[in-house]
């Protein structure tokens, strides 16, 4: 049976596809978007995390997990090895026994497809006529066999499927996954590939061509294109218009909308928990500017939300 690594599972999600959904956040992503709000989903291996707010500074972790080089200095719990090397961090069980508050915790857990299906079946009464499963992440396409097996099995159990993805993978992978999806949400961040690479770590040609083919070849799938509006990246009319023009040819295909998402800083505490720098610093995006860009978008493309 296929298994994969998952960051967390969230039930009663209302913003990740239609209806009431269970979102499975995959762990691991090929991108490093500087504004990423889920940095804990970026790496493919389990990691340690530490929440300052609930920590008692009791030092129990330092004592009980001494093998792993955990330190408590300046009211901060830290650890030496962040490489993901096997055995470099304690197990879930060891952490649970050491930390009374779950302030120190392991991020990332392996699941078998069958375990996830059991969890989804319990939630089925809530999906009703519209809701279902959403794969998110991280990047679901980066664990293609796991994602496919999960989607197939979910479909077989009468559960509708959705995905939040970058669409960054070989076409046959994207095509294969899309064939099991009812509701497909994908990002187009910025059309300029150089800028794309600078801010996300990878160029955009591959994902753009995949999206183009998807829109043409999967007429029955509902698509939602998402553009996070990020200060300094695409918070100007030109960048937004460029995306609109890319989408324009598909305006009449139906089952397609374009959603602009306002930049937010809600990921900041997660960077602290991982002892990473937040790459965006203190930038903000005003509501006025966001609204303005949204109206620009609606000039170019009909179905903007």
């Amino acid at each position, binding site marked *: 049976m296929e298994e994969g690594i998952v960051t967390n599972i969230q039930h*009663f999600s209302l913003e990740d596809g239609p209806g009431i959904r269970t979102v499975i956040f995959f762990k691991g992503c090929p991108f490093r978007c500087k504004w990423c709000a889920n940095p804990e989903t970026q790496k493919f291996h389990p990691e340690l995390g530490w929440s300052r707010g*609930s920590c008692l500074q009791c030092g129990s972790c330092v004592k009980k997990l001494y093998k792993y080089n955990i330190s408590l200095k300046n009211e901060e719990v830290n650890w030496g090895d962040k490489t993901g090397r096997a055995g470099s961090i304690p197990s879930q069980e060891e952490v649970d026994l050491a930390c009374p508050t779950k302030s120190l915790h392991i991020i990332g857990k392996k699941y078998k497809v069958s375990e996830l299906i059991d969890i989804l079946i319990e939630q089925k009464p809530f999906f009703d006529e519209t809701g279902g499963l959403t794969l998110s992440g991280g990047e679901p396409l980066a664990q293609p066999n796991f994602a496919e097996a999960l989607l197939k099995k979910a479909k077989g159990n009468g559960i509708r499927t959705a995905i939040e993805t970058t669409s960054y993978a070989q076409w046959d992978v994207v095509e294969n996954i899309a064939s099991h999806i009812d509701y497909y949400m994908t990002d187009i961040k910025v059309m300029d590939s150089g800028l794309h690479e600078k801010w996300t770590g990878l160029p955009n040609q591959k994902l753009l061509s995949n999206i183009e083919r998807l829109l043409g070849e999967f007429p029955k799938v509902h698509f939602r294109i998402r553009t996070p509006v990020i200060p300094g990246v695409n918070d100007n009319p030109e960048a937004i218009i460029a995306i609109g023009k890319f989408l324009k040819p598909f305006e009449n295909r139906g089952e397609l909308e374009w959603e602009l998402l306002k930049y937010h800083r809600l990921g900041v505490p997660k960077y602290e928990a991982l002892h990473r720098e937040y790459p965006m610093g203190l930038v903000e995006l005003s509501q006025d500017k966001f609204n303005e860009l949204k109206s620009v978008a609606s000039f170019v493309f009909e179905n903007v939300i």
Partner: protein
Amino acid sequence: MAEKILSPQEKRIEANKGQVIFSKGSRVQRIYDSFQGSRSSVDVQRARYFTESFKTTEGQSLVLRWAKALYHVAENIEVIINDDELLVGRVGGQGKYGLIYPELDGCFLQSFAEQAANRVESPFEISDEDIRIIQKEIAPYWDGKTYYEDLARSLPEDVLKITYDPVDTFTSRFIANETSSMRSALQWVHDFGKGIDEGFESIKAEAQEKLSQLNPLDPHDSIDKAEFYEAVIIISDAIILWAQRYSDEARRLADSTKDEKRRQELLEISRIAAKVPRYPAESFYEAMQSQWFIQLFSRLEQKTGATISNGRMDQYLYPYYKKDIEAGKITKDFVKELFQCMWLGMAQYQDLYVSPAGVKFNEGYAHWEAVTVGGVDKNGNDAVNDLTYILLENKREFPLNYPDLAARVHVGSSQEYLEEVATTISDGAGFPKLLNDEEIIPLLLAKGADIASARDYAVSGCTEVRMPNLDTFTTPCAFLNLGAVMELTLRNGRMAKYGDELLTIETGNPADFASYEDFERAFIDQEKFVLKQTFRQQYIANRTRPKHFASPLGSALHALCMENGLDLHSEHIPGGIDLGYFDFIGLASVADSLAAIKKNVYEDKTLNWQQVLSAIDADYEGYEDVRQRLLHSPAYGNNDPYVDEIAKLIDRVGVEFAKENAKYLGVNIDLRYVSQSANVPFGKVVGALPNGRRAGTALSDGSSASQGADINGPTAVLLSNFNTKNTEYINRASRLLNVKLSPSTVAGRDGNAKIIALIRAWCKLKLWHLQFNIINRETLLKAQKNPEQYRSLLVRVAGYSAYFVELSPDLQEDIIQRTEHELSA
């Protein structure tokens, strides 16, 4: 910055700086303005005239005395018609008023009269003259005669000590708490349809007919039953007389008013009050006035828990509505206006509790005269009609808390109906509450109801239901403090608050328990012991009440009472179904406690008993690490079998006990979880618990999770609820379940779809009750100050998830300022 999302009701209130507002200059606004500023005051009239009459009827049968006393009240109580009123009748003076019922708890009246205006919880204004009347005329007569005193005297010592302080029986101990002394009867629903359709002349004729058929040689007939039917005749005359006095007053006012429009209204009121409830109503307006008179007269008759609920208004009023609307005699606006006049009348009545325990149980002035809509009809078809929709619409438009609207839901409920229900939930403050036909009807059938009566149930009070011509059990029931049971287990039959006194049985010192199973067994032994005492207490209450209460009006409207010539408060009425309950308070608190001990002491061995017990003794002062360990153990409300299995066991002990022992009481005494606000006073007597809860704080409420512990969202809360029911038994009653939602979750068409999906899932899971609490700005501010209680608040943004309390203060502020719509429970 995006605008803060408020529910339409909140917007209306905010726009008017907290002042509730109706359409400007409207009749309802004027009525509202006439009382809204006034403080609640005590009205002594009912108690005074009731007592005057009782002084003259000593030695007669109770039901006759009651009818005569109410006749005396009807003759003398002030008749007031205010400007603008379309429905007339009130049972107290001007403004907001509460009544006292000395036959119930008159032993507290001397001190109440002095303290009412200054007490912290729910104060009431009282005039010096009324203090004198209470202290000189009312209280002395009832001294030693009240139900409360009789009950306290009747309890055996071993039951008494977990009920009241044996030295001062005026003080409750909140372990196994009886509620029969703070209200005269269980929440009730009359067959209003009978009163409206037939009228009291017809009921009187029915009683006369019954009288004539009695066997003069059988004293049971010629004395007991005869007295009962005579009482029905007197009570019918009383309500007719009282209504006629309103008719006369309306005529008098009509003659003196210069306003022609009002004169016409008053003449119409005068005509109607002379007609109903004496004769059958023939129009919608008459039916409404008849209902209002009956409802009000019930308040004079007795204090019931949450008073008398209104029953299935969309059913019994529908024929009148249909006839008049089709004939073009009324408009929908007029129908709504009449309803609003009724709700305004209800808003002026304040629930007044005299005993200290009653006040603690029911903080505030609220009362729940549930109006039931929707569900199936007697034939099992969907019962929704135009009036259902009008009542839902009315709830959205009417910004006060009245009425307490309850919507019945079944698997066949239409999408259109649920759309209206969902819209009402998001517009209002979470109302209507929902009751599930799929759970309730089969349970009523299994307990012996016929199918038509079961399908025709009406919501009564907060979550209970009644079949108005079939239910016959009126004794208020006990609340059992599971938190105390846990403490009794930890302290070998004692509680910190009550010193060294052995309250229950000794089940051993926890430190000596070799295994978790030993600890669990000790808890169950304590649970069973307190259950045993609770049932004994209930038995005595059942036996004592008929000596103290009668309900000639309630009986006149009940088919079985009329058929058998028995008062509604009789211990048993042939053909009736007796549905009582016992309420478990703090299920999640104790299930979580058991799970925390199992995990930390016996499995992971991260703690030992000595540490836990010392931490509890110190109320966790200096033991924060121990507390956190316990707090972060598996918790009920997360669909986690580890703890749900434990909660299910606690439930099973309760339902099995009920199955085996209720037969000795001759009534169904079933397990329910509806603490309402009682989890607060019950929590006050309980020391720290092993789930990390501190001493004196609230226990978990109803069948909800411990505060903040349900960190997996509402679907998990519903599933835990489902997982912990022992459905192979029928000895269960209602479970109250609150689910938090944010305004935006519920906003718009898309929001409706999500609420409906949640409702349909709840319906399929066959859970009894569901009510949504809409999270507002205030909730978020509280969460900032007290994060532990709000661990379950999730921030939901597309493709992102985190808990609100984990955000830094500035990001929290951002969320509070910007949008509530990024949150859901």
